[in-house]
């Protein structure tokens, strides 16, 4: 981001530069409250009308030792004069409570030349010589890398207000940021009051004082100031992460039974539901394992209560057999998979879009099912509502694929206006119409009405064995063929109700970037940037992966080249031994190639990190044949 305008500021000598957006990080040892600081600052920005995306930086260990390189705990706040849809790339400003935690962040590419670091300076005077030496060494390293470091005695300033700086520094930092970005201090003080409400007046007062001091401190010690003007927002906004949005979606869909087994990064959905589901009259079941969880949900659903189960990669693997049963026996079910890095236990806290093929093809035999992927936090909410309806209308499981990036990203979304049709309808216990088979398949659509236990006259025995429309076990040659046809036809029927997606940027051109899931924001931002450079690029984002949205062949035909961008593994195209016949491609690319017979290329990586718009743009430039330093793409 380059500065756009320069405006004089009230803060004395400094000029306040107006910019379109800024990325700020607060990093520290864990337990120092950096995350609360970032959330508070982010909320203030959101309230003032900025687009905001915050994401927590979580160490791999639960309590890593202090001052450890891999142990950074913190938060990133990206805010702008427009909607923010992703975490962006390099930070503009970092507040760090020690110098060691910066290393891990640099390693993952979060900082680079130009990043400004406000660094706690007390380590320079540490009684331990080793620490002083490490500090000096790090300072040199940082500067060598082009970071602009300001050493500040933040902790000392805090100690003037509180006896233990560990628990006070964070609001001090919020004060600093408010000053640096010219935020209305009253709004921030109000927010502090809300955050600490439950802890009593004394705590509120002391934190408000810290905030004021921080602001004063920055005014004195920080030699720059920025402004990120707000944009107009309409209507009420809610601030949440994607997992909370999923949880709220469950409530709004009237899903009253959720069965799960804890697994990162899906667990926080159930943390939310642990409290919220009972509040709306539902029940959260923490089952003994993932198999029991899906079995429980299927049982509840068969008994007429639409149910959901929530998991991540390894848990999805365990649910494979039951997922096949839900397809075969046509039991509505919402299965949410918050994807993490794989294969196997993989990267539990990191992002990947690696479960698409497993969701589609994991079950043995032919198990057609609906698979959808929300692309934004707002869609996390609405897609659960959609999934519940699809599950019941199409009588089968609906897999909702989100990922760790959506799960942990926090942003404001418009407050949904609740619609009574979202709720699951009340349990039908009226008599079952005589003569209607338990699988009264409509030959054209494969759809059939469903008898719920308790409905007189609807008695039937659900089975995972091949069966007739009367739910009778049948091993004859026709019944299995018919059942498979009927279940497959449901997807075709659903597809006829979908409309073709609309490309972003342009309707035709040199290259079309195709994505799905959480990469939407970064891809579209990249496309916008590339188009501004004059490149003939557009993007298309798919929400329905099964059935695929219609009209793709027609859209693809308008572009010279089509390429997916996905956070999953693909062989780099130019490796020795890799040719078009044996290249293992990214997962959506595989699907599209098979269906459309179009030479869909892909650019993907499995680095456990969301893509930033810059690296996507870079990859596109490389594929377009422009000058690029990285022809190998992500590999």
């Amino acid at each position, binding site marked *: 981001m380059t500065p756009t305008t320069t405006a004089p500021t009230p803060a004395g000598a400094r000029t306040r530069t107006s910019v379109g957006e800024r990325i700020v990080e607060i990093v520290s040892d864990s337990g120092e409250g950096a995350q609360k600081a970032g959330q508070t600052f982010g909320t203030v920005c959101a309230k003032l009308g900025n687009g905001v995306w915050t994401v927590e930086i979580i160490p791999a260990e639960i309590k890593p030792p202090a001052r450890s390189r891999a142990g950074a705990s913190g938060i990133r706040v990206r805010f702008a004069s427009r909607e923010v849809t992703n975490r962006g790339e390099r930070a503009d400003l970092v507040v760090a409570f020690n110098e060691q935690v910066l290393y891990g962040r640099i390693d993952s590419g979060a900082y680079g030349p130009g990043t400004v670091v406000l660094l706690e300076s007390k380590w320079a005077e540490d009684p331990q010589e080793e620490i002083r030496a490490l500090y000096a060494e790090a300072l040199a390293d940082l500067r060598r890398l082009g970071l602009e470091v300001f050493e500040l005695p933040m902790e000392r300033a805090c100690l003037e207000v509180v006896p233990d700086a560990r628990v006070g520094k964070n609001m001090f930092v919020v004060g600093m940021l408010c000053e640096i970005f010219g935020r209305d201090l009253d709004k921030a003080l109000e927010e502090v009051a809300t955050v600490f409400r439950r802890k009593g007046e004394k705590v509120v007062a002391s934190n408000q004082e810290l905030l004021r001091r921080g602001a004063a401190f920055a005014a004195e010690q920080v030699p720059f100031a920025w402004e990120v003007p707000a944009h107009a927002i309409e209507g009420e906004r809610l601030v949440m992460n994607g997992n909370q949005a999923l949880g709220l979606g469950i409530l709004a869909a009237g899903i009253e039974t959720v069965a799960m087994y804890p697994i990162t990064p899906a667990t926080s959905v159930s943390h939310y539901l642990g409290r919220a589901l009972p509040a*709306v*009259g539902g029940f959260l079941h923490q089952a003994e394992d993932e198999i029991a969880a899906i079995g*429980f949900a299927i049982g509840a659903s068969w*008994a007429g209560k639409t149910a959901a189960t929530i998991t991540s990669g390894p848990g999805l693997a365990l649910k494979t057999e039951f997922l096949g049963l839900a397809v075969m026996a046509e039991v509505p079910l919402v299965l949410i998979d918050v994807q993490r890095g794989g294969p196997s236990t993989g990267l539990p806290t990191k992002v990947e879009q690696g479960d698409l093929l497993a969701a589609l093809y994991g079950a043995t035999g032919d198990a057609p099912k609906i698979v959808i992927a929300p692309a934004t936090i707002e869609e996390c909410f609405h897609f659960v509502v959609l999934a519940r309806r699809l599950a019941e209308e199409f009588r089968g499981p609906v897999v909702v694929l989100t990922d760790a990036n959506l799960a942990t990203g926090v942003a404001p979304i418009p407050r949904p206006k609740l619609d009574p049709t979202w709720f699951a309808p009340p349990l039908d*216990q009226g008599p079952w119409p005589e003569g209607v088979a338990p699988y009264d398949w409509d030959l054209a659509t494969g759809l059939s009405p469903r008898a719920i236990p308790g409905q007189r006259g609807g008695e039937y025995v659900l089975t*995972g064995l091949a069966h007739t429309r009367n739910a009778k076990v049948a091993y004859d040659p026709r019944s299995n063929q018919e059942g498979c046809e009927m279940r497959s036809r449901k997807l075709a029927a659903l597809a006829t109700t979908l409309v073709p997606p609309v490309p972003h940027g342009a309707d035709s051109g040199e290259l079309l970037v195709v994505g799905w899931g959480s990469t939407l924001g970064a891809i579209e931002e990249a496309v916008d940037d590339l188009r501004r450079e004059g490149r003939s690029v557009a993007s298309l984002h798919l929400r329905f992966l099964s059935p695929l949205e219609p009209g793709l062949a027609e859209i693809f035909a308008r572009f010279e080249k089509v390429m997916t961008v996905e956070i999953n593994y693909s062989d780099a195209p130019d490796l020795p031994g890799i040719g078009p016949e044996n290249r293992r491609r990214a997962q959506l690319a595989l699907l599209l190639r098979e269906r459309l017979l179009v030479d869909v290329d892909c650019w993907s990586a499995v680095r456990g990190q969301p893509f930033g718009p810059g690296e996507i743009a870079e990859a596109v430039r490389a594929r377009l044949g422009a000058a690029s330093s990285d022809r190998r793409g992500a590999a």
Partner: protein
Amino acid sequence: MFGLPADWSLEVPERYFTLESYDGGVARWCPGCGDFAVLSAVQRICRDEQIPPEKLAMISGIGCSSRFPHYMHAYGFHGLHGRALPVACGVKARRPDLHVWVTTGDGDCCSIGAGHWLHAARYNMDMVVMVFDNSIYGLTKKQTSPTTPLGVGTNTHPDGAFLPPLDVAQTTLGFPNVSFVARTVDWNPLHLAATLEAAYRHKGTSFVHILQRCPTYTPNVFDELRQNPDHTLLLTHPDGVAADEAVRRMYKNQLEHDPSDYGGAHRLADRREKLAIGLLYRNPSAPRLDSFSIRGLDLTREQRTAALERELDRFAV
């Protein structure tokens, strides 16, 4: 109750259910299979209790015994091998009005389903769990089950199992929060029926260990027991399984065992001396997960919507 049309309950007294009301067609077990006896006993209880067929949820895994639901006129769920119990818990969690009966085999329950077995006992939701113990994998044609006695050759262990068998009732007794464990035999229809009746009446998860004949693959395992009634010990008690005069006459060995005596149950469950049949253990006050899971069922749509708006409020900025 839950979305029932208002006129529904008025209809109930007009209906009378006969044994045929529960008949799901010709059962296709082998001739002489013990499963038939259990089917009859369950149908009888349903008739005696006048349970509307649509209120029955017959849930099973996979195995010969797990075909049970197909032979009942009722709602049935013939699911996956080893997974009857999680499904049953899911059904019961929010449908307290349904009568849940689970059919599972010694392989289905004690081998692949062992984890769920332990945890379902712990959850203690109100349902009857019938464990059909024929000491073998029947449906897959004679492989060793955890209950196969030593010395019985199978297709996977032609010289017999390596390890002594586990006893279903005894092992169940060791599970946390277990509230009802009984044992019976398919070849004593009166005792079988009385045991299932007691299980049905218990509020909680009632495990019934049923020794079940499989003339096809384990024709002789119960020979001694069946030929010599002295190898059986009939448990009697006013709080136990009601033992008919006819049953009492059959077994000379009888013991009045108070089903609240957990230690005694443990000792009696041991099959090395005699096979104790009847109610081994019952704890009517063990906590039940379904008493928690039904919370909120009574909320109206309006209450739920209001609560949901409050939830949204929490995220407002």
